[in-house]
């Protein structure tokens, strides 16, 4: 009887600890969202989204150049990663055999673990070799980000292609459809929503990256939308610089850093929520 009491007390204690772990883990999330919202809102204004920081010495100026830069760098990175990633996944799921398939599976896993700063150094080393030391370009940032993005795209795309039912492929073959047309006209459309989810998650993962861009795209105060020419600002590095070198108007700079952080969180959350919604539709469509 006594041991029974102890067993149940222990059960309650451990269940409490497990629930406590969850509550403890949620505290940072709540605090983070609350603090970033509270501190970010004062810096948000029309000016923040429409003006750049060129020649600004006082409190004014915005982050338009950083927003444009984030969009361009992310778009170019996606243009590199999405086709390669999806074709790679098609290779893994539809064609791959033998050693190349095994090597790709293994090294994609390895690639997901590359530290983001190392991806940045790689892009710098690559471009430095051809364009000389000290080079900073928007496209260098995109190349760095594509090292991080490609494995995420290929992983998720492979998962989605896997769940496309085989009888769809077999039905297409039975009608005499060549394999490539089966993939393009049957497999990919069926998997479309799932592929889109994966791409959105991948974009959400790289859009807030700071470290690889810190060493590749440089710092600039005015809008530059040409990834192949000159330095390019982006939101994450913008937030870092406003924090790190706030200048005389310290609070104004901090406000801008928090506003940029809030904008980034909003973009990331929006992408994640959209991805979840799209994925729900994908699951019902495939079945």
């Amino acid at each position, binding site marked *: 009887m006594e041991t029974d009491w102890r067993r149940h007390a222990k059960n309650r204690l451990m269940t409490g600890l497990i629930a406590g772990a969850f509550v403890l883990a949620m505290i940072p*999330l709540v605090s983070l969202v609350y603090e970033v919202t509270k501190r970010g809102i004062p810096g948000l204004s029309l000016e923040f989204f429409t003006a750049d920081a060129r020649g600004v010495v006082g409190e004014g100026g915005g982050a338009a150049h950083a927003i444009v830069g984030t969009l361009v760098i992310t778009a170019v990175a996606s243009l590199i990663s999405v086709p390669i990633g999806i*074709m790679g996944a098609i*290779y893994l799921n539809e064609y791959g055999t033998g050693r190349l398939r095994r090597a790709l599976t293994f090294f994609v896993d390895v690639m997901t673990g590359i530290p983001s700063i*190392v991806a940045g*150094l790689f892009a710098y*080393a690559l471009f430095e070799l051809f364009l000389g030391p000290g080079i900073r370009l928007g496209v260098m940032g995109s190349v760095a980000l594509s090292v991080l993005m490609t494995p995420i795209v290929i992983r998720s795309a492979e998962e989605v292609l896997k769940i496309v039912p085989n009888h769809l492929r077999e039905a297409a073959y039975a009608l005499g459809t*060549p394999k490539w047309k089966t993939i393009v006209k049957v497999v990919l459309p069926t998997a479309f929503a799932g592929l889109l989810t994966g791409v959105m998650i991948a974009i959400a993962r790289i859009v807030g990256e700071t470290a690889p861009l810190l060493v590749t795209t440089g710092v600039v105060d005015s809008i530059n939308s040409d990834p192949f020419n000159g330095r390019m600002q982006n939101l994450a590095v913008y937030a870092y610089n406003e924090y790190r070198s706030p200048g005389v108007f310290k609070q104004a700079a901090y406000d801008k850093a928090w506003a940029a952080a809030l904008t980034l969180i909003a973009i990331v959350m929006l992408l*994640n929520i959209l991805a979840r919604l799209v994925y729900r539709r994908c699951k019902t469509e495939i079945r």
Partner: protein
Amino acid sequence: MAQVDTTTNAGQLLAAASGGRRRLGDRVFSRTAVVAAVTILLLLAGVAVFLVSEGLPALTAGASELPEGKTFLDYVAPLAFGTALAALIAAVVAVPLAVGVALFITHVAPPRIASTLGYMVDLLAAIPSIVYGLWGIFVLGPAAVPVLKWLEEKLGWIPLFEGPASVTGRTMLVAGLVLAVMIMPIVSAIAREAFGQTPRKLTEGAQALGATRWETIRMTVLPFGRSSVISGAMLGLGRALGETMAVTIILSVSGAVTFNLIGQANPSTIAANIALDFPESSGLAINALIATGLVLFAITLVTNMGARAIIARQNHE
């Protein structure tokens, strides 16, 4: 098996019957897929090759030419120490927490809300590291100051809490804690998947024998998910080793090699050192930083491959 053979045979027959056009389409498409696969492998090889080629000048240079006038080994050793220390704090804090969170979601919380709870944990992983950095220095750091003071007063006899306690909170302990928050969702996601796959016959069998919830977890779920937790912990460790911005922003660095986690003088990490010094460096200093990046790459590679090997062996079983 036989079915697959028939379809390929039928496809080949049809392709032969309709001439070369169809086969050309197939050939082009499958070649493109192979090219994409090879490109990805080349990309990874490229990371290693270019880091080596640009890091090599620093590895072979004399001490007098390198930053701080040290040999490369003397330059990288304190950084590697700081990297390992920060990642270790993160793993020690994050792994038990992640196991608790995973158990809560899979075996304690009502199944109806489990996927929503899991989604909330995943959100933690989606938050950009720069935001963690700002949160760490403006929110967690100041909030930690009284705790650091208390640690110094009550537990100062432990070398880890030797003090004098930082008055800004920009310490190794706070940086490690922020890293812990960042890697917890990664470890938890892997643990969650494994715990969720515990065979029902085991858990229900334990319950039928009168085991309490905790006894069921301890005797069936935990042993079943053990190797997943280990590999998840290693993946999390790998992430913590390479995490840059949070440490760059939070840690007040001095290059000291110390186990004192709450003081003002902290060892830097490889990644943070690159982020801090790279924008203002030129010449051989750049090569030295790239070489430290190579060291970081090697460390994370070994950690991750270890984790993957554990996963692979487990899948095999």
